[in-house]
């Protein structure tokens, strides 16, 4: 009894166009089939009572997605965000106990899911913006780890440097994006009107957390290359070689060391 009750309740709650529409589609416009299921009364019929839950279900998830993907919601507008949330929820009903994770697969859905193709046509940059905002959310409550200090680095013996492999804090995300969605996020953070995005332009963004505050910045191609290599576990010697390829042998160690100093300052690196 309980099993059938909950499955039917859930099916009505999550029906894409509401309880009334679901009943009409099933040939029961009057909701007569609800008689042995839920009870209405003189004040309100059973269909309308179920609609309260159905409306709350969608509104609650839309609210969380709008908070977690603030710039995306601002750029899509109310109706656009509504369309995205509806399509996404149909493809990926929430499966994690915490509503905090309800948007975890939104970026991948917008980027790769065949069902999201119409959304990509309307907003070709939407997956990139969702990736950025997913990274911001992940960075907010990623695990705390002891950080690598400048002093610890300075105490490293010279012969240890070539083989030095860096460990990154769990909050660090490096995003290679096809669209300059940075402008949309910046506009959102300034509470400004989102600029139109019509032309793709690759950019690399770095997301991290320092002093409990989530930060992000666009980075230049060489720093992106070094970070990517370091994140993949390449030793410091290899980072210098990468820098040398772009800057020449003379300038490379200095650039690699400056980059490293900045990463330490920004709290990107975990203690060894």
């Amino acid at each position, binding site marked *: *009894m*309980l*099993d059938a*009750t*909950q*499955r039917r*309740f*859930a099916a009505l*709650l*999550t029906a894409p166009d509401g309880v009334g529409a679901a009943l009409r589609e099933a040939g029961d416009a009057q909701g007569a089939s609800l*008689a*042995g*299921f*839920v*009870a209405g*009364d003189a*004040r*309100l019929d*059973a269909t*309308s*009572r*179920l609609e*309260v*839950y159905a409306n*709350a*279900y969608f509104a*609650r*998830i839309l609210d969380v997605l709008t908070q977690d993907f603030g710039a995306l919601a601002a750029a899509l507008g109310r109706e656009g965000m509504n369309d995205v949330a509806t399509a996404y929820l149909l493809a990926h*009903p*929430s*499966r*994690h*106990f*915490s*509503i*905090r994770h*309800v948007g975890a697969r939104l970026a991948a859905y917008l980027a790769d899911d065949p069902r999201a193709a119409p959304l990509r046509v309307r907003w070709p940059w939407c997956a990139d913006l969702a990736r950025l905002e997913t990274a911001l959310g992940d960075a*907010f*409550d*990623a*695990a*705390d780890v002891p950080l690598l200090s400048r002093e610890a680095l300075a105490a490293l013996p010279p012969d240890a440097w070539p083989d030095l492999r860096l460990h990154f804090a*769990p*909050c660090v995300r490096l995003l290679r994006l096809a669209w300059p969605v940075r402008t949309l996020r910046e506009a959102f953070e300034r509470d400004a009107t989102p600029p139109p995005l019509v032309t793709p332009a690759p950019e690399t963004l770095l997301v991290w*957390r320092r002093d*409990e505050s989530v930060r992000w910045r666009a980075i230049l191609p060489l720093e992106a290359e070094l970070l990517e290599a370091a994140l993949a576990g390449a030793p410091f010697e290899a980072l210098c070689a990468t820098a040398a390829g772009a800057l020449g042998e003379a300038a490379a160690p200095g650039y690699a060391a400056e980059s490293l100093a900045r990463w330490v300052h920004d709290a990107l690196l975990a203690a060894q």
Partner: protein
Amino acid sequence: MRPTSPPRPREAPYLGVGVGLRPPHYAEVLERGARGGLHVDWLEVISENFMVPGGRPRRILREVRALLPVALHGVSLNVGSVDPLDDAYLGELDALARRVEPAWISDHLCWTGVGGRQLHDLLPLPHAEAAVRHVAGRVARVQDRLGRRIALENVSSYVRFAADEMSEWEFLVAVAEAADCGILLDVNNAFVNACNHGFDARAFLDAIPPERVFQIHLAGHSRQGPLRIDTHDAHVCDEVWELFAHAAARLGRVSTLIEWDDAIPAFDVLAAEAARARAILDAVCAPCESTSPESRRAGRDAA
């Protein structure tokens, strides 16, 4: 025969009147709490908000806990569902409880998802014997897993099931007795349901066994057509204050908490609601306490 205080659950001593801790108040609570200027006695947090790997939420909870007693209030136990209990959730709840050492742990007498799909809402159960057996067995397993009794809260609802065999309060008490768990009595929810389903909220409150009540919730609600909706976005209404006084007269001093989850006002607004609840408890409960053998003895000792 003079009135005496009713029996209390051993694991739920009276903590006073508290408020639900929500993100807009984190910084203020820490700042004022450190200098004793909060004017609330304890805090309740939503367990799931702190089931995160790290960052600000975990630090805040650690520091808040150092200031005041904290109770963990969950929304995802899904104890009424026909789905298997979520081991991952219970593991995280257990780990959180070990970190926080809460006064107690509570969740809701409801289901929140089925078939692996989470609906993120506190959904009602049919008030039927089969549901009592189903839920009670699961609550017992949760309590075994956590190594403590938990409290279950009565939820607001907007439908009744054709399969109902008993009143909501009979259902709540039957589950609590069968599972040997506590009750988190939400007076606002009892009132909302009384309005939505046409019963006397006092009948609900009068049926609750005092020895199982860990805590009371008070909150505001809104109207939507003929229904009252449990929105937690307003002051506690007059009818609910009256019902709270009625409950306090029967239950004695029970730890009481103000919930406010939407359109969250300044912390002082919550503290003022807490002060009003405290004044009601003092007015209603003090006469009984002053004539109880324990308080007479305490009075003699103090003298």
